[in-house]
């Protein structure tokens, strides 16, 4: 699929390259910085695309920590697979070196070279599972030497096994599994407090410290969440045309590769042999409209521009959650004009900080009990006397809100049980569950 893979610095200078097919001249990548530059210049025209096609070569790249990872291909390849491979490559290398950046590439070029060799063969992605890769590629070469003394290095079974994500013979003294149910709320609210769109992105994360080859079965409260599509069909056909909007519908569920998808499809049971350590067993997406009629954290903000080069912001936040719940680490990020200065804040509660380099102010509220409402007033000076209208209209950036609410899921999803069964070892095990609702990347309030 991919003919070459390159690591380049932010200017597009190649740091490390691997050629898999030899069907593209090795100096082709030298054009990449020029193409990038061209792209940036044409940005204005809206021509900018994340992929470049130049003289029959396709440059498929992603940006990470001031690095470019770029794959070259000549043919009509499965670009989705290539992009995903590049992002998994980043993931693997990050797990190896903690952080993938220019310096760590230089420090580890030998390992990266070897990893690239194992992760892709003839341009076709092979294994992108760090735990398995670590089995036969080790950062520390010396380790491998000791094993190879008796000349019998085997590729790990897992590479060609049906269960390719877990090796045999894992052992823990205390067998435990930790479940985290995390729901991130994305919401787009217009200036008058109306919700334009909203979604819940949920994840069930597992940290497994379990011995042997355990078979897990995860039970969730099926408040109609997992209505089987077949049931849907029946309902749909019997009450022809009547839309069935009342039941909670999980719009989409994605499972980790260890989950038996056909079992879920037919019987609605989630069973899997977990990889060792941390992983996300499932993620789901729900349109939040059915749970959230109003925003969890309501922000209202008014900006007044006074004639004497002064801007005044009045903001109120309300936690529209249950009285018993508390929201933690609430942050309201309010954009302000770039050249504003001399801030004066009078928050009713919490602290306000001015972050000039990002031209916004952050109002932090450590704990925020449900049902409460707080106000804040901010005043900033403006150096130049300009048209107040202009200031307002040039400041269309939305307000962003961050928060987290523990012990609570918006959708009401709950883990009923986690059955752990290891047929050979038959040990006692302890599952633990935690719930949290937090703001997603896009919890924003548009400003007028």
């Amino acid at each position, binding site marked *: 699929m991919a003919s070459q893979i390159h690591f380049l610095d932010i200017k597009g200078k190649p740091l490390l390259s691997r050629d898999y097919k030899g069907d593209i001249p090795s100096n082709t990548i030298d054009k990449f910085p020029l193409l990038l530059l061209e792209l940036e210049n044409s940005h204005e025209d809206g021509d900018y695309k994340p*992929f470049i096609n130049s003289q029959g070569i396709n440059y498929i790249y992603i940006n990470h920590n001031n690095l470019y990872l770029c794959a070259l291909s000549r043919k009509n390849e499965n670009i989705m697979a290539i992009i*995903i491979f590049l992002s998994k490559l980043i993931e693997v290398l990050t797990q190896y070196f903690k952080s993938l950046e220019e310096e760590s590439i230089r420090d580890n*070029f030998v390992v990266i070279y070897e990893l690239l060799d194992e992760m892709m063969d003839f341009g076709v992605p092979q294994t992108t599972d760090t735990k398995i890769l670590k089995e036969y590629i080790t950062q520390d070469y010396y380790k491998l030497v000791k094993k190879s003394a008796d000349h019998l290095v085997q590729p790990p079974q897992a590479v060609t096994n049906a269960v390719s994500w877990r090796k045999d013979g894992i052992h823990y003294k205390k067998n435990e599994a930790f479940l985290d149910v995390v729901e991130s709320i994305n919401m787009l609210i217009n200036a008058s407090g109306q919700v334009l769109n909203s979604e819940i992105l949920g994840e069930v994360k597992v940290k497994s410290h379990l011995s042997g080859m355990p078979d897990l079965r995860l039970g969730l409260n099926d408040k109609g969440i997992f209505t089987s599509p077949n049931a849907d069909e029946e309902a749909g056909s019997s009450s022809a045309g009547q839309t069935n909007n009342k039941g909670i519908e999980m719009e989409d569920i994605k499972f980790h590769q260890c989950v038996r998808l056909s079992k879920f499809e037919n019987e609605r049971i989630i069973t899997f042999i977990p990889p060792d350590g941390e992983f996300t067993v499932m993620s*789901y997406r729900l349109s939040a409209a059915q749970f959230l009629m109003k925003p969890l954290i309501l922000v209202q903000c008014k900006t007044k521009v006074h004639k004497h080069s002064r801007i005044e912001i009045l903001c109120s936040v309300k936690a529209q959650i249950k009285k018993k719940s508390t929201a933690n680490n609430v942050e309201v990020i309010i954009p302000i004009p770039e050249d504003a200065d001399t801030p004066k804040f009078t928050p009713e509660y919490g602290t306000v900080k001015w972050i000039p380099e990002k031209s916004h102010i952050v109002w932090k509220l450590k704990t925020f009990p449900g049902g409460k409402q707080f106000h804040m007033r901010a005043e900033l000076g403006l150096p130049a006397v300009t048209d107040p209208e202009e200031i307002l209209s040039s400041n269309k950036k939305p307000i962003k809100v961050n928060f987290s609410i523990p012990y609570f899921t918006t959708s009401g999803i709950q883990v009923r049980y986690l059955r752990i069964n290891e047929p050979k070892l038959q040990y006692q095990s302890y599952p633990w569950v935690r719930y949290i609702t937090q703001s997603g990347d896009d919890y924003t309030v548009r400003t007028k």
Partner: protein
Amino acid sequence: MSDGKLFTKSKSVELKAELDQAFKKLKSQNRIKIILKKVIANIVLHNNELVNLMPDIISLMKIDDLAIRKMCFQYLIAYCPLAPKLALDAIPFLNRFKDDISPIMRSLALKTMTSIPIKEFMELSFSTVKFKLEDADPYVRKIAAFSVSKLYQYDAERTEKEGFIDSLNELLYDKNQIVVSNALAALSYITEQSKTLSLTIDKAHSLTLISYLSNTNEWCQVYLLNSLMSYVPSTTNEALDLIEATIPSLQHENSSVVLNAIKVIIYYSNYVKNPELILPSLPKRLGASLVSLLSKPAEIQFLVLRNVILLLLGRKELLNVDVEMFFCRYDDPIYVKDTKLEIIYLLANESNSHIVLRELEEYAIEIDVSMSRKAIRAFGNLAVKLPKSSNECVDCICDLISNGIPYIIQESVIVIKNILRRYPRKFNFAIDVLVKHYKYIDEPDSKTAMIWILGQYCEGIPDVYSIFEEFISTFKEDPIEVQSATLTAVTKYYLKMPQQGEALVLKVLKWATEEIDNPDIRDRGFFYWRLLSSEEANGQNGEFQENTKRIILSNNPSISSENDNIDPNILEELELNIGTLASIYLKPVQHVFRLANRKFLPQSPALQPRPKQSPISSESSPAPDEEDDPAPPPLRPYLNGNQSDNFLHVRRNNSQRSSKLSLPRQASFDSGFSNEEFPAKKGSFAQRLSRKASMITSRKNSTKY
């Protein structure tokens, strides 16, 4: 520990000396490894001088140490092509390693020899790979499968002749599913390259492959799903079963698996009549699984969105998505916003038009100029597409114009011109709003549009004379299209209001015929002049310029939203390429990848004719004769191999498809500004007008590349 300090350019002489040193000391292996790491650093740095180290490196392979040998292999792969003679000494080593006890060693030797495109190494590979395809260890078999693709790349004919393809085929029945899926990946590379070979699988095997889906790693699933495209279902039920078996893969965490599963499902849907009725939940599930990919990084979002467009164009009935999900976020990159805007346009219908228009209004007043312009263009296109919502659209545009922001006005003029053409006389009030702000109009496209409006509606515009005068004042410097439009508009003005217009028309015609160098403009000037001054100009009973009016003031053909019409054959092929590069360029595969094999839906009793979706299908003439088809070459089906050609030909005629739909567009673009006076060309004028405002990038692309 870090190897950073080893990452420097070295000279072969230095490294050689270091090697000699290392051998003298105790624990030489560790020292050698450090030196080898320096060698690797120089591979990374493309230091070709290190080729001189060849004999030393080859002799290092004597040392029985996997790490050392691994690095030696990397040296060989990098430098052997530079010194083919010296490299030959490595062959005995590779020959020995290929039968090593350790499977890792065996596969490494195999990988190395097949990666060095030198005759002797290839000879060795040809004799080795065959046995390794039957190696006891699955890991080696997997590597051997890819070695066959490498051999094929090196010498396709020989690989085929010596039966490697058949042996690779055998691997498809291997007992290890990982080997099977990698063999499929290797085969698919070969069949894509080859003009003669193609992969076909039978029913039993397709079921086996599906059953492997649950037991392999994510990448193997991608290859397995991909290979399912090679099975042609012979009955509807078969296709349905396969669709149902593929549906679980929509829930995989790897986006590439998901997109491939969608590709497979769409492919099989061609063999089911009304799949959306038989599997009512299918559109919803496809929609949901695509939408949930929108929470991924921007590049992936972009890919997904492009494929959503593709599906909306061709397979609307199989995709159930809410337009709200595609509303732009503030920090979306511009290319994501663009694509979302296209989707919003495609999804807009009478029932959701209210929400959509509110959202577009939000974009139109955004500070990002290009976004705001695109939003206005979308308003115009929606007004043309949805007659019932056109009122609301025009109201919004008029509101926006009255804010008096120049770029909004520039864009709105173009849009309003389209709307006026689509709904003659319905929205004349919009002209009044525009006229108030005519002073801001200075871009060629907007000017052309404004001048057209002036000419067409001059009788209703107060003070039209002075406005005309102002636009005309720059006539000599204007671009050609503005000059053309001016000529026509002024002539119309004269015909409708002779007293006021006479002076203007004389002035412009004089300029056009005497001072303009461009032959087209000059010709047109003369043409009008003669028309107006001809003896035949007045009607039989002496009506003023009756005959000229008949020619110049004839009605314009009405325009429609032509965006929804893309050649179904192109769509069909793109659908078979979901998730590939072609799907993001959204244009005919052969356009971008000249050497790509054409993909088409294989014939089968169950194959359904493509549902018609174009709203103006009335236009579809009887199937055009392939030979008379004025298609520009890239749009023509790829005529390769007479069998498939005939087959395609027949099918196109049977299903009454017309590849004509997309053609006039192309033609009109090339022909430049067209003359309203020639009825035959009126169509293309309409096309051109709406093309200007078109949002579908496929269109833009098809002319750009």
